[in-house]
């Protein structure tokens, strides 16, 4: 198993100053650039520490929000491409359907891949609903734009014999010729995220690494949808390395301290959904059939425990978050056992995207969290024997 450290690089000092929305409409007068600078430097120090501890790195971006200061993920990638030595640099993700210019995306990511000497993992994402307000891209066409941008970036990275022409539905270029060319051949690994079995099938056909975020004990059905389509397309089962899961991780030498840290890291879950309601579901983001259910007030629960008890990610106490597989928390023995059990539930999961810092967790606590994980948990996860992929896929 590989483990990626992730932080949303939050501007947590303003978290208690909102009046109903931490995103889209929260004025940036609440952001002191001097405080932001200190936080950024601290977060990059923690990423460098992860690199030194042998942990890989994940970055993301959100817009117009105090929950995540990284609004241009390529800046973070650029800093870390130079400042780290060994870590894979996973961007999860790059909301390419929102971008006006995928040529720029191809150039940025190729440059990062070269400077990092081939350490880039390239996660392309649709983006959460709130991002539409910032980009103003038509949410109805977001996935069409996403796939055209994807096709374009891949072609731009894999074409080496001079310019090609692209006159698509959304993007037009006549001389596409990306310098520098990518380091990894034929292109950096592609990742994506989803929570829906429909999208999982598409990713399975393509064989891309699929990540789910906070899906807890609902993860298996999404993974199985991927497995079925992967198996039917590729004639073999996908290995555990095709699956990734974002979980919160709080480890300490005693359970009480671990739970304190768990609650601080769960600050991410407490704050992430604080959004003025009109921005939560822009038209066309969901299919009309789903929106008809939303109009009726019927929204399926997203997170539940292994025993099937529905929990609220935003409000659930730490113990419920642990039961739901959303938070891995406790002593190193506890955390290893929880992650291994979760992998069994998933039928194999080879990439843990570890939120090891969030919100009010201090720098010292973060470093201790990462160090203890690297020393006491990670070696056991590396040795962990994933469930037999062929047997799992055959039963999917």
């Amino acid at each position, binding site marked *: 198993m590989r483990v990626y450290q992730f932080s949303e690089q939050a501007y947590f000092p303003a978290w208690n100053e909102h009046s109903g929305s931490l995103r889209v409409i929260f004025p940036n007068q609440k952001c002191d650039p001097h405080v932001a600078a200190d936080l950024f430097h601290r977060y990059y120090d923690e990423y460098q520490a992860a690199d030194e501890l042998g942990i890989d790195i994940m970055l993301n971006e959100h817009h117009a929000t105090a929950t995540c200061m990284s609004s241009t993920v390529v800046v973070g990638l650029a800093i870390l491409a130079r400042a780290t030595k060994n870590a894979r640099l996973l961007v999860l993700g790059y909301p390419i359907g929102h971008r006006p210019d995928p040529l720029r995306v191809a150039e940025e990511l190729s440059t990062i891949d070269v400077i990092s000497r081939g350490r880039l993992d390239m996660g392309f994402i649709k983006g959460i609903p709130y991002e539409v307000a910032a980009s103003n891209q*038509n949410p109805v066409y977001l996935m069409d734009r996403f796939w055209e941008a994807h096709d374009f970036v891949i072609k731009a990275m894999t074409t080496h014999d001079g310019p090609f022409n692209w006159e698509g539905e959304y993007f037009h270029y006549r001389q596409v010729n990306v310098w520098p060319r990518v380091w990894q051949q034929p292109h950096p690994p592609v990742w994506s995220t989803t929570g829906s079995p429909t999208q999982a099938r598409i990713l399975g056909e393509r064989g891309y690494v699929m990540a789910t975020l906070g899906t807890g004990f609902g993860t298996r059905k999404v993974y199985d949808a991927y497995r079925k389509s992967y198996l039917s397309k590729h004639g073999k089962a996908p290995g555990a390395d095709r699956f990734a899961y974002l979980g919160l991780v709080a480890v300490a030498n005693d359970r009480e301290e671990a739970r304190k840290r768990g609650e601080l890291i769960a600050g991410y879950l407490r704050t992430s959904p604080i959004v003025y309601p009109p921005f939560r579901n822009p038209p066309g983001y969901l299919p009309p059939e789903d929106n*008809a259910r939303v109009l009726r*007030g019927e929204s399926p629960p997203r997170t539940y425990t292994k025993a099937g008890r529905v929990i609220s990610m935003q409000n659930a106490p730490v113990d419920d978050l642990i039961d739901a597989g959303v938070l891995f928390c406790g002593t190193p023995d506890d955390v290893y056992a929880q992650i291994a059990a979760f992998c069994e539930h998933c039928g194999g999961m080879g990439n843990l995207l570890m939120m090891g810092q969030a919100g009010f967790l201090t720098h010292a606590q973060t470093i201790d969290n990462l160090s203890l994980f690297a020393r006491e948990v990670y070696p056991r996860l590396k040795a962990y024997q994933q469930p037999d992929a062929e047997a799992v896929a055959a039963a999917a």
Partner: protein
Amino acid sequence: MSLAAESADGSLTVGGVRIDLIERGQRHSQARGGGGPLLFLHAENGIEPSREIIEELAKSAHVLAPTHPGFGRSELPKSMRSVDDLSYFYLDLLDQLDLTDVTVVGVSFGAWIAAEIAVKSTARLSRLVMANAVGVKVGDRETRDIADIFAVTDPDYLAMVYCDPAVGKRDYKALPDAEVLAAARAREATARFAWNPYFHNPRLKSRLHRIRIPTLFLWGTHDRMLSEAYGRAYCAMIPGARLETIERAGHFPHEEQPKIFVERVFAFCGKVEERVA
């Protein structure tokens, strides 16, 4: 005699695209005050809220009320992405049904379609009624001419577009499935055609001078999505067009004051006839 209902369920296929079409009134009964059929183009909230006005109009005219592609149960070809596309679809519909001397009545989004049709050709049209019309930008780049309906809560939206918000309130738990799905499709279709640029076509303004048929703007004065000043500026871009206000009505005056709305439409038709005579 029915023009439209090719099938029992009142659908019509134009250029391979099947849409719903309500047809009411007698084909040869002249619109009160004279003239040919009346083409009613519904607003962004779909055909359902317009059922009453369609019946009212049909008491005195032969009314055709299509459900726009992408709304209700009407199909939407992937290639149809703009109000410009919708206007060509309706020009084809007018040709296919060989309609002449048509009075087009559009509300809000429907009025935008009407304007896009009329700048291309008024050959089959005799009059235009534009109620609380969107479609152009009148202010500078930092002025929000048209309120962002996607950035407000449902109660705030209803208060914005209705004089009496209760008129627009829907109990989705109690409505039939098809109507709830139609509401969801209307919201998506509106975004499809009007998200960006927001409820307008930057090219339309410079084409409006081509509309040389009698044009009436009707304006619900309690509209807080569009100001009356916006309506007057829009109206001034169409040669000879004039604007009449409707009190105690918001963005959908045909829903809140259907009788007054119908009277204004037919008074306009009559006046046009008198002028021509």
